[in-house]
């Protein structure tokens, strides 16, 4: 008994506390993911649940993965997803970087107000905000009419349009994704930029650099970790996004989230849906892992310099 108590006092608490996050990950990520992997190699059956192993079918059925590579529907969905998510991430970066930089340059009082404004949209339901965009982009909205009038005023009469086709396009998907995910870009960037020493900018100016040069030489290289963090936080959920493309997107070129959802719910092809989900995860996780591996190796190398 006392041996157990002794062990517990010596390392038990520490191990328990370190172990908790791992337990969480095992229970809520690793196990479900293993189930999905297992499902992805099952065979579709007309039973409930609609998949099975063995019997008339092979124990391990790679049909889903084969179709993933051969059926252009899936490949196109992946490409659409990556293009939309990539465009949205890039636009978020272009919009969010100046905003984050601006946040670090205003007075403390303004900073708090502006930071509050950045996260304020989260206080309204996400769906409500998407529906608001649908209203704005619709043919008869004042917003669309304003754009239409602007367009008609700019171009010759032959090109005039009745309304700007925005709804059910990839443009709409990217627009709403940029709007939704912008705070996820701004906040990590702000956290990164805020830590930078403003005196470094002065030092660079003092040594002959104009402000634009200072940005390229001093601010930008030091904000790369923030850019990567913000980029991942936008890109990963955007690539798997289901709600936005379903509501405002083009159903003829679905994104991968939509495909997974349809395979599960409409087609009731759970193995196929699982295969797509596993492929999506790999697509997201592998570059991230490669990056952090490279990053830790680079840091290691630096600290080892004699």
């Amino acid at each position: 008994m006392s041996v157990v108590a002794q062990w517990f006092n010596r390392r038990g608490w520490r191990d328990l506390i370190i172990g908790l996050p791992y337990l969480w990950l095992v229970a809520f990520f690793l196990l479900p993911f293993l189930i999905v992997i297992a499902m992805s190699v099952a065979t579709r059956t007309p039973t409930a649940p609609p998949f099975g192993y063995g019997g008339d079918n092979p124990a391990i059925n790679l049909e889903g993965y084969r179709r993933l590579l051969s059926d252009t529907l899936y490949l196109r969905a992946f490409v659409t997803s990556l293009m939309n998510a990539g465009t949205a991430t890039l636009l978020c970066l272009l919009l969010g970087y100046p905003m984050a930089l601006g946040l670090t340059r205003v007075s403390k009082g303004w900073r708090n107000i502006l930071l509050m404004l950045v996260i304020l949209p989260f206080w309204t339901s996400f769906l409500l905000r998407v529906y608001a965009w649908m209203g704005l982009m619709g043919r008869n909205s004042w917003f669309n009419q304003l754009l239409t009038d602007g367009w008609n005023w700019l171009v010759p009469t032959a090109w005039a349009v009745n309304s700007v086709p925005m709804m059910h396009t990839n443009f709409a998907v990217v627009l709403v994704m940029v709007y939704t995910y912008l705070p996820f870009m701004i906040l990590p960037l702000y956290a990164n930029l805020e830590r930078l020493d403003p005196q470094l900018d002065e030092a660079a100016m003092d040594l002959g650099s104009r402000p634009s040069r200072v940005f390229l030489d001093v601010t930008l290289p030091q904000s790369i970790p923030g850019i990567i963090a913000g980029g991942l936080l936008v890109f990963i959920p955007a690539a798997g996004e289901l709600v936005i493309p379903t509501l405002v997107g083009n159903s003829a070129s679905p994104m991968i989230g939509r495909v997974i959802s349809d395979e599960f719910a409409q087609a009731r092809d759970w193995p196929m849906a699982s295969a797509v989900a596993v492929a999506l995860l790999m697509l997201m996780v592998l570059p991230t892992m490669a990056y952090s591996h490279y990053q830790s190796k680079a840091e290691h190398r630096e600290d080892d310099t004699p």
Partner: protein
Amino acid sequence: MTGEPGPFIRIEGVSKRFGTFEAVKDVNLTIDKGEIFALLGGSGCGKTTLLRMLAGFEEPSAGRIFIDGQDMAGTPPWDRAVHMMFQSYALFPHMSVERNIAYGLKHERLTTAQRRDRVREMLDLVQLTQFAERKPHQISGGQRQRVALARALARQPKLLLLDEPLAALDKKLREHTQFELMSIQQRTGVTFIVVTHDQEEAMTLADRIAVMDRGTVRQVGSAGEIYEYPNSRFVAGFIGTVSTFPGRVVRLTGDLAEIDIPAMNGTFAARAVPGLTEGRNVTVALRPEKVQISKICPDAVNVFEGQVKDLAYFGKDSLYRVTLPAGDLILAHAVNARRGSDSDRTADWDDKVWLSFEPASAILLTD
């Protein structure tokens, strides 16, 4: 470039306001080429603001700054041949020591070989050649300071500004670095302006010192001038230690003034200063080392009595705090020139002692 008549740096009536706060008030200074000039003052005295105006980070609200005969108004920091060594060093953390030093050189028309040679030369000057590849976080504080110095000197500035150059170093390193800075200044011939709150640092480093207080320059002079001939109670009290007593001029004879000092219970002779009139109230300031202390009445001009309240023994010397008849305290410094036990010392606690000072040693302040 050289041989130009007139001072190298001219600061004419410069003021700087931040909102309603006036950080620098009507400062006039001239600084010669190749000089080490110190701006000395407590925090908030305006010394750093003045430095930032020289670097171009702040524009003066009034007045003009000339560097090498050129009016600097409207010239941004990146177009000034003035470089600054920041208090925090402000080294670029993502660049190696070598690239930090080379940073300013990319704005100069140099061939790759010339640039490399200049960096080599700078690394050599600050003895950091073997650390060229390291990042700033991989070297010590003293080495970082030298990288900052090399980076600022690499573009061969006309003027180098040093913001509290030794503040971040520990005591031992400070003394060493101080002499190194002076030797580098001599070798490069660059004019240095040093901002510091540390009087010792200013006195050993600088050829001339400007003592600043609440935005104004109170006195400019060599270390000796400022220490021995302060022009105000502020400067006398700020540099070194001083005991001050109110007095009144009783009589003026030649260059001697007879001063009635109630605290010392008598009249005393002191070297007169310009502007004295009979009957005028003055402040008499005495440096501790200028006050002699002994247990027997000395044969001297200005002698008065006191009682030892406190003494501090430092080994090489002792500091006495002596109570005067009227209750005021005076500090007296005695060098322990002769070896002896505690019972042999000049005076002990509660001893009646005689104090004296030379007429020339008393500082008369009229402000």
